[in-house]
């Protein structure tokens, strides 16, 4: 693992046919060991941003990792550095959790190695789904499947992890478990970027939060600094109160959906 390299995203843009999904996205100086939460309203382009970093959708602008400029790199080449967990889950496959993890480990390189199975089993064990290792994916619950998908993203030991809504189908205990794993992976020197809808969860676990709105980064900084009443109104269009818990972390109480009168006009919200 080549730890210690910074990830730089500059002026990134994604256009699908005629539509602009992302435009001028900047995320500077993401350090190894950092857990970044990516939040924003539905259809803000959070998943697209992760895919653009992974090279799965064509994007303009620059992505630099250490001294490498990834602009001309295919997804196949970037995959050596990136573990990406997409949102979709496989429902109809009768592969076992272990088989699926092995496939993720062995894809993109020739031949199996002797200790592949042990590596995969260790990762599965670390995620707390050891007993499920030999069960078929189609027999698992949504939450268990999510953890199996996480195992597939993590198993290559990539220095950058992109997790697209990893806790969306999970109960509280499993949410904690997944975020705890993400935190540990970051603590080991990886860059972890997680798409989260729950701002409280983001504030609890992330070092910095990036808010995506109107095709660009609306705010990027420490949870305490950026989560404010005004931000919630501007970005999500809700009337909400931001409070701080005993540990000093912000949490959000939503009172109502703001009417159009309360919302500032969209053009003024870029920042």
């Amino acid at each position, binding site marked *: 693992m080549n730890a210690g390299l910074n990830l730089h995203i500059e002026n990134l843009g994604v256009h699908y046919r005629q539509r602009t999904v992302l435009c001028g996205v900047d995320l500077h100086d993401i350090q190894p060991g950092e857990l970044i939460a990516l939040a924003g309203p539905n259809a803000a382009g959070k998943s697209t941003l992760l895919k653009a970093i992974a090279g799965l959708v064509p994007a303009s602008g620059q992505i630099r990792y250490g001294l490498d400029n990834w602009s001309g790199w295919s997804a196949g080449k970037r995959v050596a550095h990136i573990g990406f967990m997409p949102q979709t889950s496989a429902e*109809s496959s009768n592969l076992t959790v272990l088989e699926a993890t092995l496939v993720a480990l062995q894809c*993109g390189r020739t031949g199996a190695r002797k200790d592949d199975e042990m590596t995969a089993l260790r990762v599965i064990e670390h995620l707390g789904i050891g007993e499920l290792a030999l069960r078929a994916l189609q027999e698992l619950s949504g939450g268990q499947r999510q953890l199996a998908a996480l195992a597939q993203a993590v198993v290559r*030991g990539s220095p950058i992890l992109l997790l697209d809504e990893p806790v969306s189908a999970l109960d509280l205990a499993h949410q904690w478990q997944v975020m705890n794993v993400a935190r540990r992976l970051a603590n080991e020197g990886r860059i972890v970027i997680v798409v989260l809808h729950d701002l409280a969860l983001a504030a609890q676990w992330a070092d910095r939060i990036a808010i995506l709105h109107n095709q660009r980064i609306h705010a990027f900084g420490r949870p305490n600094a950026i989560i404010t009443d005004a931000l919630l109104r501007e970005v999500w269009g809700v009337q909400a109160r931001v409070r701080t818990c005993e540990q000093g972390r912000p949490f959000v109480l939503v009172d109502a959906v703001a009417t159009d009168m309360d919302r500032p006009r969209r053009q003024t919200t870029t920042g």
Partner: protein
Amino acid sequence: MHLDQPFSQAPDSETAAIHVRWQQHRRIMRRRRGIVVALALLALAAALIDLFTGSAALTPTQVMRGLWNPDSLTTPMQVVLWQVRLPVALMALLVGGALALAGVEMQTILNNPLAEPFTLGVSSSAALGAALAIVLDWGVIGSNATWLVPANAFVFALTSLMLLQFLAQWRGAQAQTLVLFGIAIGFSAGALLSLLQFMASEEALQQLVFWSMGSLARADWQSVAIVAATLAVTLPFSWRAAGQLTALRLGEERARSFGIDVTSLRRWALVRISLLAATAVAFVGTVGFVGLVAPHVARMIVGDGHRHLLPASVLIGAALVALASVASKSLLPGITLPIGIVTALVGLPVFMGLILRRSGGQG
């Protein structure tokens, strides 16, 4: 959770448990390899029974002796064994294997359990090509009488799948789009075929109907060699793609996230499928259900891992058509039924039974 240990190390308390699971996994893999070997023996046995069956009076002992030492048989019996039974038996194995391989790859790349070459218009396109040869005496390779029908069927089957490929690429190669285009191509070819049948003479119509029922009786050493060569060329590439095909079972998005170029994987799989299906249909006509049933049965017994699934499908397909060939010769005394009818008649109930048993087990 094991908060302090890095991911590359096993959590101490769990090392024993991991080892047990590793051994269990190894056992499962060994069992699957055993199943593949057993299926190979089954296909071989089916082919032998196929060799033993026929209207000519050849005992199994004579057949076995005749295989090692052709001179031990009388000349007519030599001809029966070496020019009729053996090519037919080999063709049954090869066509079954080819159709099953095409079917399993198609089901995977389209993520659709109903996909097989024939549900996506290959059979009707091939039949259209054959009809042009039989009814209008028009051929893509001129008028060499022996090759006119198979060559036309081959070219039309191949063209239909290439057209599918082209349409899919033009519109972005989504699995759903491919299925819909395939169905559309199938219906268009079917309509044109009906038009030709409507215009055909009675004799040509009869010939056409027989052709489309599928028959192994036309097999000779030359056609056996061509189907064998097609399978020999495509199999290594399928095998090389096995890992990527397995990943595709986790969903297209996931496969892409592993760094797999899904578009290219799909394109090359379609090329293999086209060659396999077109060659098979050119020499034996429409043999339905094998490409659908064999992969399903294989999936039930060896799972979705393509390192086992591909060989298991091929062997099940081979055994299935070999057994169908036996049935086609022995169901009605003195008459060899068209193989396509038998595979459908035998394959369908078996398939339904398996599905019912499985859904019963789950519910």
